[in-house]
């Protein structure tokens, strides 16, 4: 009996930590999403059923936030994947590979809040280097943070700058792990670089590309810091990301914990749905070798 208790006692601290830091907030979020819970008023909370969820569909800012997040997802993530894969292949075997590799990782290591501040300065209308550079080609100054279209483009560019290295790192690591024998064998059989890529490298890298895709989707849905530091969601609601809107509703301006919880639950469901779609579309489970045989 005593021996059986010891393992439980050993894991108890971690279990307690897990319950208090993950499970409790999660359950609390679900619970509060069905309640009127407004900290700025300080009144008692009360059960209001699905009202918070229904409110989302008539909340124009929530809908605009959702649209911009979808745009970010649809543009930034594919660009990051293509660039990351392209760069990983391009720098392979190039002179100074190690230096290039290390330099490429720098954007990923910069905290998002810091890169937000830096990009705000880079985008400065009058003195920013971006407009200065464009002026060399005769392009007039652009209001990168004050024009709806350019502000959206600006946020997308920052995301691409910051997260392409992540994709690059994963693919580059994958490339290093491909046995040289396989490539050599293909070349002996007369395959050019295109065939080697298509029939040897790409199939072996596919699981890693899919992992990168899933991680980027999840991360992209949580985009917050860059918007917080650069546009504050403007102009209008053009660059409100969904996560940034949750922050405003729940923390910064609203203190409406109930509504923010409902928005968060919806984000969780959308994230799960998207990831599931990706899994199903590409049959990743089988690729990774942990899918059921019957599937």
């Amino acid at each position, binding site marked *: 009996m005593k021996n059986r208790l010891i393992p439980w006692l050993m894991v108890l601290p971690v279990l307690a930590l897990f319950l208090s830091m993950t499970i409790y907030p999660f359950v609390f979020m679900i619970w509060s999403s069905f309640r009127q819970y407004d900290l700025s008023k300080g009144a008692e909370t009360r059960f209001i059923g699905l009202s918070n969820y229904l409110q989302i569909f008539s909340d124009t800012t929530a809908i605009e936030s959702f649209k911009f997040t979808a745009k970010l997802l649809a543009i930034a993530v594919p660009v990051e994947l293509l660039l990351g894969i392209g760069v990983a292949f391009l720098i392979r075997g190039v002179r100074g590979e190690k230096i290039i590799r290390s330099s490429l990782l720098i954007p990923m290591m910069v905290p998002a809040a810091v890169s937000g501040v830096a990009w705000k300065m880079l985008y400065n209308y009058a003195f920013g280097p971006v407009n200065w550079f464009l002026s060399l080609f005769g392009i007039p100054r652009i209001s990168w943070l004050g024009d*709806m279209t350019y502000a959206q483009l600006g946020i997308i560019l920052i995301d691409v700058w910051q997260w392409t290295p992540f994709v690059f790192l994963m693919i580059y690591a994958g490339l290093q792990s491909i046995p040289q024998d396989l490539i050599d064998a293909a070349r002996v059989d007369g395959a050019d670089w295109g065939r080697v890529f298509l029939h040897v490298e790409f199939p072996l890298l596919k699981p890693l590309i899919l992992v990168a895709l899933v991680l980027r989707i999840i991360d992209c849905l949580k985009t917050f810091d860059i918007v917080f530091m650069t546009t*504050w969601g*403007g102009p209008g609601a053009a660059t409100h990301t969904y996560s940034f809107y949750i922050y405003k509703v729940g923390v*910064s301006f609203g203190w409406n914990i109930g509504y923010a919880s409902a928005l968060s639950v919806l984000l969780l469901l959308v994230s799960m749905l998207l990831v599931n779609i990706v899994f199903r579309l590409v049959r990743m489970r089988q690729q990774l070798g942990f899918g059921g045989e019957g599937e």
Partner: protein
Amino acid sequence: MRRLLVLVSAALVVMAFSAVKISVLCSPDNADALKWLAGEFMKQNPDIQVEIVPLSWEVLYPKLLQDLRSQAGSFEAFTYDVMTTGAVSFGLEDLGAFMKKYPELLPPDYDLDDFIPEVLEESGMWQGKLIGLPFYNNTMLFYYRRDLFEDPKLKQAFKEKYGRELTLPTTWEEVKEIAEFFTKKFNKNSPTEYGIALMFPRTHTLFYMYLLFFGQYRNAPLGIMRHGTADLEYGEYFTADRKPAFNSEEGLKALEMMKKLMPYSPDPLGSDYGETIEYFNQGLVAMVPQWTGPYLIFKSTVGADKVGVIPMPGRSVSGQWALAINKFIPEEKKVAAFKFITFATTKWADKNKFLRFAVAPARMSTLKDPEVRAADPRVPALEVTYVTQTHRPRIPEEPRLEDITVETFSKILVGTLPLSMDTLNDLAKKWQEILGK
């Protein structure tokens, strides 16, 4: 000798451990002055340790709400933006009652009546109780390039173009004309590229910038006739009977004027506090409406002889911060916090924080002080502004009203929403919903 050293060391250690430690959360604008005052305070009160913790507006306000609502008591004193008064008031110590309870704690020359009455009312009072002491009596001023306004050639050119003297503007219509004159796109001989630096970004800046324009029309005789006199609790955004006032002819006029000025400003929708300061610093613009604080930056960068300060054309807007005590802390800490916040708002502190750190004064004695008047050209402008400025609401719903308003105004200025009464009526309807009316 050795024994003496040991005894002194031991005494110091005992003192250090027996000292009451208090944390004071504040906005970065107030931090340097508060740190200096904390140092001076600790010299006089070695039994109290004061730690100043600066936090940005976006972090400070949620932190205050979160801590006060949970009654955690993780800090003892703090500065709060008066626009958040209604939301945080429940967690603030009643200072009037505290003064009655411990009259001996008040500094000997502490004179509540010396505070500028409107400032004490707006910064410190909430529903009849004294809950804060005015610390940072910020207001917006109109800065201009004095050297350009006094240049005979430019004066002549202006007169030839507009048929009147180049005088300091008193209305936004005059500002528009001068801004056009100083914008290269409209006057190729302009010494500056743009006439004026405006900050209309999506942040809460847009909410107070609107009042610079709306205040002029809202407080004109016709505006007063329509909306009544604004009170300090609801401010100029509301009518005297506490209904939205911006969905009116005056409200439309304000936004029209903002739009009219935009062509003469570098990136008005993408620029905030820091950017507009930099535009003026670098000589890109001839005029900039800004808070009291940046004067010191302008003085050191552009040069004191080149920077002029006048009251805001139209109306200014208040941006006050008060010092308060967390209600949910032990009595001994409340006493220490009380000692510090009263020290930091004495006549001596008020004068010195203005002279050393440009923290706007809250006391009449500071404004009248000959040394202060001789040292700082902002004082005459401040005197005029303090009695004419407009105010944002202080009610608990303010942040939420602010957020939806900024979104609508931003869309109007960008052009995705029409500048019409319908748009403003829609916004007013949303306000009524939030206010539960």
